[in-house]
C-alpha cells in the first residue's frame, strides 16, 4: 500500500431527498466544489425509477488521495426528507454530522458521537422564492461551511449550474447558499477540514461519458440506441454533439433495429457502435451472430442494471456476463471487455474499435449502473493520442483476390482474417450472407449444404471464424494486481467491483491483513495459460462480483480449472461497499465461506 494516510484525508457525503427535489444536480454541484478544491472524487447516484417523489440520494466520496468507490459510511448526511433520514442515519460514522431542517426532519435515534446540525433550510429558501426549492442550495452552503471550503468555490459551481440559463436564479441561489454557509460558520460547528488545493481541479467523468468520449476519439461516427437506463447518458451526449463531431445518431424503433442499423453502418464503412442495457441486449442477440457470421465489426456497450427482466432499472449488477458468453445460437467469436472506472472506459472504447475491426468480430463492453450513470470518478491525464487500426481494409484488389468479378471477401488466410472492402469500392464487389457461405460469400446453405464435397468447406469457414479467438486472447489484457504481489488473500474481481475491493484492500492492509486484489477487465477470450500462471498464488482466493451465481468465477473455472476458496456475491441492486468486501475477507481469514 503506497498510501497510509488516515481518515482525515477523505470524506463521505450523502444527500437524500425525493425525486424532483433536484438532489442529483445538488450532488453534482457539491462534487464540483470538491473537485475544484483539488480532491479526488467517486460518486454514486442512488436513483429510483420514477420522476417525482420516492427517495433518491447522491453519494460523494472525496479524498486527498485517490478514492475508488463509496468509501466507508457517511461523514455528512444531508436528508431533505424524513425518509432520507430514516434510510441513512444508521450509516453515519462516529464523528459525523447530520445537517437537517428541524421543521422537516426529526433526527431520532442519532448514534453517540454523531452531531445534529439544525439549519432552517426551508425558511431561508422561502426568502428567495415562493417555493422552498432552494433548500438544497442552502444545505450545500451549510455543508461547504462545515467542510471549511471557501464559499467562492460553491458560488462558482452555482453560477455554472444556473448562470448561463438565468443569471437571476443563480444570484438568488448564491444568496441562499451564503445564508446557510454563514449560519453554520457562526454556530462554530465547522469540524472537518481536509487539505484543499484550489489551484488544482480534478476532472471527473462518469463511465458512460468517458466511454462516449473514448469512442468518438477512436473514430466512432455512428451511434444507435433505444432509450434504456442506465445507458441513456451515452445517446444524450452523442446527440448533443452530433453536429460538432459529424456524428449520425440513430434512435431506432427498438433494439433490434438499433443493432441491425449499426451493423449496416459498419458494413458501409463507418466506425459504428450501439448501446443499451441488458433487456435491450437480449433483443439484439440474433444480430450479434449476424455480425460475427458476416465478419462485420461492431461495438456494443451494455450498461448493466439489476435484472432479470425489467428488474431494477436504476440499480446496479454484474449479471449480464453469462448472456454475453452465450449470445444467440451456436459458436462464434466475440470479445468481452469490462472497464473498472471512467478512465478505463475511455481507453476501452478505443481498444474495442481496433479489436473489432482488426478481427472483424463483435466487441461487447460491460459497464454498469454503479459507474455508468451518476457514478463519477476522477480522471487524470487521459492520453488522447489514439492510434486507429482499421485492420485489413482494402481499396484495390490484390493478385488472386478477385475472380469472375467477385472479391474473395471471406478468403481463408493464415491468420484467419480476410481482406475487407466497403460497398461502393470499384472492383471489390462481394456478397455477404448470414447463412454459411464460401470464400466469396456464396451459399453453402442451399444446394450445396450437406453434400460431402462441401462439408470440409463448412468446417473450414466455421474454424476460420472461431480461430480468431486464439489470436485475440493473446492481445487482451491480463488482470492487474492492486496491492503488493504475494498476499495471504487475493480478491479476484472484475469490472466495477474492482473499486470497492481497492478500498477494502487499503483498509485491511492498514489493519495488518495481507491481502491484494486481482482485477480483470478483459473477460473473454481468456488467455488460459497466462491466467493459470497468474492465479498460481500461494494465498487463498476469494471471488468478488455483483451477481448470484458467480458468473465470472464460473467462467474462470470453466476456462482454467481454477477453483476459488470463497466468494463474495452481492445482488441487492446496491453497489458493493468496501465494508462488505472487508467483512468477506475477514471471515475467509477465519476459513468461513462468506456471502454478504
Amino acid at each position, binding site marked *: 500500500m503506497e498510501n497510509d494516510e488516515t481518515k482525515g484525508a477523505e470524506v463521505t457525503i450523502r444527500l437524500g431527498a425525493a425525486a424532483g427535489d433536484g438532489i442529483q444536480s445538488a450532488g453534482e454541484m457539491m462534487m464540483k466544489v470538491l473537485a475544484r478544491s483539488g480532491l479526488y472524487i467517486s460518486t454514486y447516484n442512488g436513483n429510483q425509477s420514477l420522476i417525482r417523489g420516492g427517495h433518491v440520494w447522491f453519494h460523494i466520496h472525496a479524498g486527498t488521495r485517490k478514492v475508488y468507490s463509496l468509501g466507508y459510511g457517511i461523514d455528512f448526511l444531508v436528508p431533505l426528507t424524513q425518509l432520507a433520514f430514516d434510510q441513512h442515519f444508521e450509516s453515519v460514522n462516529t464523528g459525523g454530522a447530520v445537517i437537517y431542517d428541524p421543521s422537516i426532519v426529526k433526527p431520532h435515534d442519532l448514534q453517540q458521537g454523531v452531531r445534529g446540525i439544525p439549519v432552517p433550510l426551508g425558511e431561508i429558501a422561502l426568502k428567495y422564492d415562493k417555493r422552498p426549492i432552494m433548500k438544497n442550495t442552502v444545505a450545500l452552503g451549510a455543508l461547504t461551511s462545515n467542510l471549511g471550503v471557501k464559499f467562492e468555490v460553491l458560488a462558482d459551481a452555482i453560477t455554472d449550474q444556473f448562470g448561463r440559463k438565468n443569471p437571476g436564479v443563480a444570484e438568488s441561489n448564491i444568496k441562499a447558499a451564503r445564508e446557510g454557509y454563514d449560519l453554520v460558520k457562526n454556530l462554530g460547528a465547522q469540524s472537518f477540514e481536509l487539505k484543499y488545493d484550489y489551484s488544482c481541479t480534478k476532472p471527473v467523468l462518469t463511465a458512460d461519458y468517458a466511454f462516449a468520449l473514448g469512442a468518438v476519439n477512436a473514430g466512432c461516427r455512428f451511434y444507435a440506441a433505444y432509450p434504456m437506463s442506465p445507458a441513456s447518458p451515452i445517446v444524450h451526449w452523442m446527440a448533443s454533439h452530433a453536429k460538432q463531431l459529424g456524428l449520425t445518431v440513430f434512435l431506432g424503433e427498438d433494439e433490434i433495429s438499433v443493432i441491425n442499423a449499426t451493423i449496416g453502418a459498419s458494413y458501409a464503412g463507418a466506425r459504428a457502435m450501439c448501446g443499451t442495457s441488458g433487456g435491450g441486449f437480449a433483443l439484439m442477440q440474433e444480430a450479434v451472430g449476424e455480425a460475427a457470421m458476416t465478419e462485420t465489426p461492431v461495438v456494443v456497450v451494455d450498461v448493466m442494471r439489476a435484472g432479470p427482466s425489467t428488474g431494477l432499472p436504476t440499480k446496479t449488477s454484474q449479471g449480464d456476463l453469462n448472456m454475453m458468453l452465450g449470445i444467440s445460437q451456436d459458436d462464434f467469436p466475440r470479445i468481452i471487455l469490462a472497464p473498472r472506472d471512467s478512465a478505463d472506459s475511455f481507453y476501452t472504447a478505443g481498444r474495442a474499435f481496433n479489436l473489432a475491426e482488426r478481427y472483424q468480430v463483435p466487441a461487447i463492453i460491460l459497464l454498469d449502473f454503479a459507474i455508468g450513470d451518476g457514478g463519477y470518478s476522477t480522471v487524470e491525464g487521459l492520453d488522447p493520442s489514439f492510434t486507429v487500426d482499421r485492420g485489413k481494409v482494402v481499396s484495390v484488389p490484390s493478385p488472386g483476390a478477385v475472380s469472375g468479378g467477385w472479391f474473395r471477401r471471406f478468403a481463408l488466410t493464415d491468420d484467419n482474417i480476410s481482406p475487407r472492402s466497403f*460497398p461502393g469500392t470499384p472492383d471489390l464487389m462481394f456478397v455477404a450472407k448470414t447463412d454459411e457461405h464460401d470464400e466469396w460469400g456464396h451459399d453453402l446453405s442451399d444446394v450445396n449444404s450437406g453434400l460431402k464435397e462441401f462439408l470440409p468447406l463448412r468446417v473450414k469457414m466455421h474454424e476460420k471464424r472461431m480461430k480468431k479467438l486464439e489470436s485475440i486472447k493473446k492481445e487482451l489484457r491480463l488482470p492487474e494486481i492492486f496491492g503488493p504481489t504475494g498476499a495471504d488473500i487475493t480478491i479476484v474481481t472484475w469490472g466495477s467491483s474492482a473499486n470497492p475491493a481497492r478500498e477494502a484492500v487499503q483498509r485491511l492492509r492498514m489493519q495488518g491483513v495481507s491481502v491484494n486484489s486481482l482485477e480483470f477487465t478483459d473477460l473473454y477470450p481468456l488467455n488460459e495459460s497466462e491466467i493459470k500462471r497468474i492465479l498460481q498464488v500461494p494465498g487463498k482466493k476469494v471471488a468478488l462480483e455483483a451477481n448470484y451465481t458467480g458468473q465470472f468465477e464460473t467462467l474462470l473455472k470453466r476456462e482454467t480449472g481454477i477453483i476459488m476458496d470463497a466468494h463474495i456475491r452481492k445482488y441487492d441492486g446496491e453497489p458493493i461497499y468496501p465494508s462488505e468486501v472487508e467483512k468477506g475477507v475477514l471471515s475467509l481469514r477465519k476459513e468461513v465461506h462468506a456471502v454478504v
Partner: protein
Amino acid sequence: MVLKLTDVRTDLFNDWCPGCGDFGIEASLQLALTEMGIDIDKVVLFSGIGCHGKIVHWTNTFGIHTLHGRTLAFAQGAKLANPGLEVIALGGDGDGFGIGAGHFVHAGRRNIDMTYIVHDNGVYGLTKGQASPTQRLGEQTKSLPQPNINSGINPILLALSTGYTFIARSYAFNTRHLKETIKKAVSHNGLALVDVLQPCPTYNDIETKAWYDGEDRRDASGKAVPRIYDVNSQGYDPVVTSKMPQEDFDRKIEQIFRLSNEWGNKIPIGVFYQEEDRPTYADRILQRIPTYVEMPPAKQDIFGTDNKSVVDLAELSRELAIDATEI
C-alpha cells in the same frame, strides 16, 4: 457506361422453383439497373431470409443477405453511413410485414432515400407455405390444413399511413411494368415501396399466374381477361404535393383507399402515391449537420496521416469533465 443484362446477372446456379414469380422480379430489377445507367459499384442490394433473399447472389452488385425481417433496419444504417450508395432493399411479405413489420412502419417516419421491393406471394415460401401476413382471411393455400384465421394487411395503406413517399404495386410477370416501376422508385427522392404480386407456384395455389392473368375468365373471343390492370394508364395520377388544396389531397387519399382494397375481379397495379417535396432524412440531417452529405460517417477521415485520432479531445472534455483544461 452502357450495361447489358449479362453485366448485372451472375452465372451462379439459381435454385428457385420453376415458374416462380421471383424470376420476374429478378429480371425486372436487373433490366432496370442496366437501363438506368447508374454507377453499378454504388448499388447495394439488401435482402432478408426467404426465397426472395437469394436475389443478391444472382445479381452482380454489392449485396448482403441479412437476417429474417431485418433488411430495412440494416439497409437504413448503411444508407445513413454512406448516403452515396444506391440502396435497394428486397424483402418477403413474411419478412417485411410479419417479423419485420416494426421496421417497415418506422422506416416510413424517416423517409430515407432508398427503395424497398417486397416479394408478396401470400405465403412463407422458404418454410413451406404457411400463411403470410398478406394472405386474406378465409383463404386456404396448399399447405394450410385449415383456412387462414387472420385477415391480411394492406401494404399500400400501411405504407401510406406511415410516411412512405412513393408507393407502388406491380406484378412479377409484367416485367415491363415492374421494371419501369422499379426505375421510378429508385429515381424517387425518398423512401419508395414497390409491393410486387408474386406467384409462388409451389405453395400458393390461389393467387397463381393463371389466376392473375384471368385464364379462368374468357371474353367472347376466348381471350383471357386479366385481373390485373394498370391504374396509371387508366388516368390515375399519383402525384401529391404539399401545396395542393386539402380537398384534392383528401380525394386522392380516398381514391388510394378504394383502389388498394380492390381485389378479386380487378386488381390495380401502378403508382398509388408519389410525393416529392417531403424532406428526406438526409435533408433533415443536413439542417443540423451541414457537412453530412459530403462527410457522412463512412466517408470521414477518422485519423490523420500519423494514424492518430482527429478529434479535439481537450475541447470536448472541458465541458464534460468539471473544468478540465486537460484530462
